[in-house]
């Protein structure tokens, strides 16, 4: 059976109902384990003191904020090319989760900035491009809300997501050009191969990142189901009204 068969909304509903418990369980477990281990079970950093503990929230949230947008981009493309409703609704469902992740990254970063840099906020490129990402999320959600016809809304938001992605990358370079920053470089080893975080910090961080990822997936599954239910209820109602 092809994976596209789950592009049928009703089938997807059934599938999501089946995987829900596993997903939520795993997500909850990982998040709790990572955060508790991080908070209670790791030593303080020599330079940063206890504030390193913020990393277990800050980095996973920041990662998920970016990945959520990326997932929306892929889902938008699928909608534009293959016109699977589930895909469009998944993009819609992911956006609010992405915003919350963005806000968590911003807030924990701000709180961390106070002791480390002596300021809540600085116009550092990394922070600034995150703020721009936040604006893109807001615009995307506002557009979904504003367009009445759901299919048109899906079309328009998909194109916005595409164009927005291009401009988000452009902004990233522009911002880098505009200001050299305070924020430290990346140390998650995906890009660079080696990592700069000591093992004591690394394992809980890894678990926490996995947890945030799972939480995101669980949430998107569930919320997509919600959107499908709403559409399906509206469709059924409309049919029976039409008959009346």
């Amino acid at each position, binding site marked *: 059976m092809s994976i596209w068969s789950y592009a049928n909304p009703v089938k997807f509903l059934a599938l999501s109902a089946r995987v829900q418990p596993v997903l939520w369980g795993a997500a909850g477990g990982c998040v709790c384990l990572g955060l508790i281990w991080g908070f209670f079970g790791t030593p303080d950093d020599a330079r940063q003191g206890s504030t390193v503990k913020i990393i277990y929230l800050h980095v996973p949230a920041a990662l998920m904020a970016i990945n959520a947008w990326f997932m929306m981009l892929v889902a938008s493309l699928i909608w534009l090319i293959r016109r699977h409703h589930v895909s469009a609704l998944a993009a819609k469902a992911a956006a609010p989760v992405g915003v919350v992740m963005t806000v968590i990254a911003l807030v924990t970063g701000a709180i961390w900035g106070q002791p480390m840099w002596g300021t809540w906020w600085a116009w550092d490129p990394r922070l600034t491009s995150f703020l*721009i990402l936040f*604006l*893109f999320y*807001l*615009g995307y959600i*506002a*557009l979904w809300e*504003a*367009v009445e016809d759901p299919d*048109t809304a899906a*079309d*328009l938001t998909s*194109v*916005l997501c*595409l*164009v*927005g992605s291009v*401009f*988000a990358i*452009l*902004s990233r*370079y*522009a*911002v880098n*050009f*505009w200001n050299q920053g305070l924020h430290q470089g990346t140390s998650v080893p995906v890009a660079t191969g080696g990592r700069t975080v000591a093992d004591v910090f690394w394992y809980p961080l890894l678990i926490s990142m996995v947890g945030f990822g799972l939480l995101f997936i669980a949430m998107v599954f569930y919320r997509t189901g919600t959107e499908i239910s709403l559409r399906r209820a509206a469709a059924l109602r409309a049919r029976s009204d039409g008959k009346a």
Partner: protein
Amino acid sequence: MKALLQRDLRLALRAGGGFGLALAFFLIVVVLVPFSVGPETDLLSTIAPGVLWLGALLACLLSLDRLLALDFEDGTLDLLVTAPLPLEAALSVKALAHWVTTGLPLVLAAPVLGLMLNVPGGGYFWLVISLALGTPALSVIGTFGAALTVGIKRGGLLLSLLVLPLYVPTLIFGAEAARRGAAGLEASTPLLLLAGITLACVACMPFASAAVLRMGLK
């Protein structure tokens, strides 16, 4: 296409048509800045290039919602879509008309308003050049935003929300060039980047705008 350009310009010149209003808005923002940040000359001349760029951007933004919404409301857009003109061309022409009625006057007025904020001597040249290179991108990107929000009742502010993040790269390079120019630094790198953005936008955005408009109209 010539007909469309002519009509748009003529409409802009008629009563309530908006020609010169972007200019007036620009002027007023520049006038209000000293009221809000205080009258110190040094401070003003430091922030002057930035304020002028920001003012230009906001003035542009504010005039976007009449770019397509009026034509939508009175049914002109429906008829244009069925006309023999390719929609991409029609939208490019409308963007051009928007630039001629808002961007161009702002470019010409910037040196005069710069006086009021004490832009340092050599800065005028770079200010004008950067605005001249950057404002076309603002119009073209704005057309895309207008096309996105066209079916939505009075999308005004939504339009701003969608368009502003898209304006960020243009603003950064434009303002950077103007600021460096005013400070007597080398400003050709940001200027080149700005020109690149404008060219790319002018070349690609009309297709996105037309696609989005077709989706929105149905």
